[in-house]
């Protein structure tokens, strides 16, 4: 199910591109914000929670997910270099699964790790806030990677759609329309974090059971469907 060569090519493609700069910029920004907030506002659980949910979970994790998820396959399909993977006796779902693992790993490293560091800076993990949001980021990394990898497989405009989903649906729509929150990776991951954090520190609109089921379902279905789409992929730029 996992092909180390596909993984190596994917890592190098992901981290070697100019787009990868955002992977480094966003975590650095989060840590800078954390240092600034701690310096000026001191250690405050509510402030820490606001920064981590407002910037780390609502903005940074989905953005990194978009870059890693779509970037793990989109550019290869766009420029046609994926033929070198497709013309090999390697099962197409193996290619997708490997790329998913790489996207998840990259998203986790660049979003969950900085979330933990920022949380420790903000209030030294008071009320388990740093750990809780880190777990939310880890959980969200999996679902976002699967979702955006599928998007990268089926659409040539995956980054645009990914950004629209991440910023408009998750951030804006989700905060205005209560129903939209039920269908939001962010809320699902917060539901998991809610159980970890101290009482009342973190809230989610979705129950833990619902959230877990939806997270697992989205990840599995998106990955399976991406594998199917890759089996019948028409290479771009032909007729």
């Amino acid at each position, binding site marked *: 199910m996992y*092909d*180390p*060569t*596909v993984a*190596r*090519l994917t890592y*190098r*493609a992901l981290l*070697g591109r100019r787009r990868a700069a955002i992977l480094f910029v966003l975590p650095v920004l989060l840590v800078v914000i954390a240092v600034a907030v701690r310096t000026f506002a001191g250690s405050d659980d509510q402030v820490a929670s606001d920064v981590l949910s407002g910037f780390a979970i609502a903005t940074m994790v989905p953005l990194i997910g978009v870059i890693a998820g779509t970037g793990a396959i989109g550019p290869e399909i766009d*420029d*046609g*270099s994926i*033929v*070198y*993977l*497709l*013309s*090999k*006796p*390697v*099962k*197409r779902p193996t290619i997708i699964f490997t790329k998913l693992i790489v996207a998840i790993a990259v998203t986790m490293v660049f979003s969950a790790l900085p979330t933990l560091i920022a949380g420790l800076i903000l209030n030294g993990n008071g009320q388990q806030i740093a750990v809780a949001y880190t777990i939310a980021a880890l959980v969200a990394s999996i679902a976002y990677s699967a979702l955006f990898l599928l998007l990268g497989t089926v659409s040539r405009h995956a980054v645009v759609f990914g950004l629209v989903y991440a910023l408009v649906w998750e951030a804006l729509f989700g905060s205005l329309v209560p129903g939209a929150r039920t269908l939001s990776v962010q809320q699902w991951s917060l539901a998991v974090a809610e159980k970890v954090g101290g009482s009342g520190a973190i809230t989610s609109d979705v129950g833990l059971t619902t959230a877990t089921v939806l997270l697992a379902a989205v990840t599995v279905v998106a990955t399976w469907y991406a594998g199917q789409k890759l*089996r*019948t*992929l*028409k*290479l771009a*730029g*032909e*007729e």
Partner: protein
Amino acid sequence: MTTIEIDHTSRWFGNVVAVNDVSMTVGPGVTGLLGPNGAGKSTLINMMAGFLAPSTGTVTLDGRPIWRNEAVYRDIGIVPEREAMYDFLTGREFVVANAELQGLGGAEAQRALATVEMEYAQDRRISTYSKGMRQRVKMASALVHEPSVLLLDEPFNGMDPRQRMQLMELLRRMGAEGRTVLFSSHILEEVEQLASHIEVIVAGRHAASGDFRKIRRLMTDRPHRYLVRSSDDRALAAALIADPSTAGIEVDRGEQALLIQAVDFGRFTELLPKVAREHGIRLLTVSPSDESLESVFSYLVAA
């Protein structure tokens, strides 16, 4: 013995028919897939390569379907037309990755790089390669598992004459070893120099098939039209029309030239200078007026 069998295969994209009821068998040796741009060569190769499903009909490799069958890639090597190929890798890294994906390793990759004579630049990034070098590394990646079938889409595009010669030599060798080599081209001379067997595709249809002499005869036996200017057009016309290789001559007063229709290409090309010398006529212009490949193909389709 590995044979690709295309059986009553069509492929359409929306309303556009790219390949129209084509049947052909591609066996060992070098086969040239000849046709003008847009004729459906790439679509056909993509179906043989398993990148496109036939809309109707079947494409099989020794009886096994190629579409949605990853196992066939153990026997097929593909050199795509497009340039993109993990430019951030070095040539060696790229070929090694291709070898690993075939379940092989560095030794096979090194041998393939030696076959295409790219060892001297193998540690440079592909992004620094010229077109010809890219083409050779693509070849190495396709050869790494010593496939019995090699499919190449317009492999000579953008190559300089020396690179072209090298690649032709390599493909000839592959064919002589008993591999099934199929390459597409829109240039007749390329195909003629290399392929012992030619398949001609025009407007999605299978227009002709056979060895190059047969195709060449079809192409040269068709009426040829020439535009000729000389020191004495009418005297030249009178002398030429006496010979059976000339079917008709028109004096084009606007162009100040003769429009000659020749039916026997070989004989006419010998006749024209001889007649001119005998009658002391100087030839000022001799140009084929319909030598474009399109006209050759349209003749073939009608034939």
